């Protein structure tokens, strides 16, 4: 291999060493973050059952609210970030934005699934039915469909640059749909309880409930952050692996051609 090849190789070795040094300490930090989040979530579970008071009209079933609402918020925040990831990719064409968009979309989808499962379990004893096509439920359902479609689309396009671009466009189209969906269904029919937090006069909850809710929310937000980080790292590794594989292949090719010329 010529001098250009050696230079390239040094560059690779340099980045490899650099990465090795940072990954060790970084891994430790993120390991700790995992443990802390797990403890936080366990404590939140305890607080929900044993600290929060019983709701007067709904009874214990109201305890689902803490998970249901907090995960809905996390899911929505994740999708919102994914929307910005899509815009960021189209504006800059930096793969990092695409990684952020897919990481948040997948984590958001996971949270929305939890919302869609806890919702009906709450609805059954309170409304008497598992499911109604109400504004929030339907919007959540369509959100789930939109982001499943987003992930399916990503599976069907193999070339990373093209995949990033197509899925960014779809991500933007999908997110624009959410307010339209919400309002169309709200005019159509609504049954879901009005927001307790930040609603009109007469709304508001017991301060203990509020604190338990915030505590739980903190746990879920922490979970969102570390899951997104891990999922993002997966995408980053995938690119590094394909680059390394391409380098290796190239090196083998040039070795072969050297032997041929000899």
């Amino acid at each position, binding site marked *: 291999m010529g001098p250009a090849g050696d230079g390239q190789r040094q560059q690779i070795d340099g980045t490899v060493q650099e990465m090795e040094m940072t990954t060790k300490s970084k891994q430790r930090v993120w390991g700790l973050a995992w443990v802390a989040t797990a403890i936080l979530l366990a404590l939140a579970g305890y607080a929900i059952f044993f600290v929060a008071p019983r709701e007067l009209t709904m009874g214990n079933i109201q305890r689902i609210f803490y998970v249901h609402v907090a995960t809905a918020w996390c899911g929505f925040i994740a999708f919102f970030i994914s929307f910005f990831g899509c815009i960021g990719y189209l504006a800059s064409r930096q793969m990092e934005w695409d990684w952020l968009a897919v990481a948040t979309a997948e984590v958001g989808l996971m949270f929305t699934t939890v919302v869609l499962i806890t919702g009906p379990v709450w609805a059954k004893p309170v409304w008497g039915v598992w499911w109604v096509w109400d504004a929030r439920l339907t919007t959540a359902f369509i959100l789930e469909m939109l982001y499943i479609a987003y992930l399916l689309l990503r599976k*069907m*396009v193999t070339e990373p640059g093209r995949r990033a*671009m197509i899925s960014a466009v779809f991500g*933007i189209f999908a997110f624009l749909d959410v307010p339209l969906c919400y309002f169309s269904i709200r*005019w159509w029919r609504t049954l879901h309880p009005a927001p307790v937090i930040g609603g009109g006069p007469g709304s508001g909850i017991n301060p203990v409930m509020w604190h338990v809710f915030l505590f739980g929310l903190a746990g879920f937000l922490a979970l969102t952050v570390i899951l997104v980080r891990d999922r993002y790292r997966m995408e980053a590794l995938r690119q590094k692996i394909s680059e390394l594989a391409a380098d290796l292949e190239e090196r083998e090719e040039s070795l072969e051609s050297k032997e041929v010329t000899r």
Partner: protein
Amino acid sequence: MSLTRSTGAVLAKELKIELRTHDLTNTVLFFVLMVAGLFSFAFSPTVQESRRILPGLIWLAFFFAGTLMLQLCFVREQVNDTLAALRLAPIDPSAILFGKILANFLFLVVTEIVFVPIFSVFYNVNVWPVMGQLLLVLFLGTFGLSVVGTVFSAMTAQARMRELLLPLLLLPVLAPVLIAGVEATSELLGAHPGIGREWLSMLGGFDVIYVTATWLLSGFLVEE
């Protein structure tokens, strides 16, 4: 060259090809006719039931017919790589999309004008008194379908399993159009025909939002 003129050129080209082959319109006409018949066999609804289910049936029939048709829209350009020829031309890339959107819209509109009376006959629902308003609602919804459908057709043209992918992407995004369209149609075919302002504005709003998004993102959509 101005956006309107280049859009017009692309539209004229689409129409000329369609008039020569009739591929898209024939497929859609046949599909909608089959749905109209089969649905009647499957449920044999009474007149009252018809009045209730007809709005949903009309919209679903045109939605699926549109999805079927839109799949061909960009695949056609791949046969001789003509999309590259369009992209080489010194025109705004949104002209390529807008030309195709308008063409698809026209094909679907023609189908609707033909089929609304046929549905009316098959299901014994008198649509004549509200025909104008009904077509207005249908056109607004169809335009939204054409915009999003054409864009997604451009996106998926090079994907694996694009035939399965397009409906999966399209139908959830079109949910607001379906709800607003069906509701507005139900009101028109109901006992006291009237037209809900909010449904029209929902359909119009959908069209405006997605036309704007298409215009902004068109450069990326036709990229290789």
